[in-house]
């Protein structure tokens, strides 16, 4: 038995799902950082007024 295709499929799935998950975490972190900055600016503006 060789089943090279099955091994490739399994490892592609492993690295694929790990990369997609890491990408979604990075995107969520980036969105939240932007939101923090936006809220801080809003608060600063509020304090000045």
């Amino acid at each position: 038995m060789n089943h090279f295709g099955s091994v490739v499929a399994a490892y592609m799935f492993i690295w694929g799902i790990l990369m997609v998950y890491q990408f979604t975490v990075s995107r969520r972190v980036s969105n939240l950082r932007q939101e923090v900055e936006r809220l801080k600016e809003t608060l600063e503006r509020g304090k000045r007024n």
Partner: protein
Amino acid sequence: MATETKNDAAPQAVASIIVAAMIGAAIYGAFIWAPTEKTMGFLQRIFYFHAASGEVMLLAFCVVFIGNIGYLMRRKPEWDWLATSGVEVGLVFNTISLVTGPIWAKPAWGIWWDWDARLTSTFVLWILYISYLLLRRLIENPEKRAVVSAVFGVFAFLDVPLVYFSIWWWRTQHPPPLIFKSGGLSPEMLKVFLFSMAALSALMVMMIWRRYKLESLRHSVEELRIEAEYQNEGGAK
């Protein structure tokens, strides 16, 4: 917040390099260093990451259990962040285990899936922790959300020992543990498997750490929103 991010960047970069090196070495071990298994041949190389993912999945759900118990005892949000982070990461490894298993099973057993105790309890585990995340989305109040999900998490954890011991307790299509048994894995194969498990465990810790940071950032956003709302109300008076 900016200072906190800068402080985190260096340790995160170092951790990423160490984990990447460990994963690289594990791949080298699985494909080059480990001998080819006599019966299954090249196909057996799926084992090193499939079985290791299953073990790491159980470890991640143990972290969830610690987080759930910690929250119920101390009522501090940090425990809830830890549990939620563990659920997401555990689900990633649970999915890997559920998908790579059938890819291996079809050529090895001739079937994609069998509803035996090990496979069924692993699938139930996946359903339970998906439900955990869905449940969290239904509750808006952060404290109520944390309590309900902690209680549900403790209940869901009951399936973890069932998954682990199912191959001892019942006759299953899934093979029994061959790791420490004579006639099981060769010493080289065992070393590669244990190293793959260490590499994926390190990756799991890093993923939970990153996901925990995300949860703490989400908490900061919630606090800033409340502050902004309070300021707006004060301005309107």
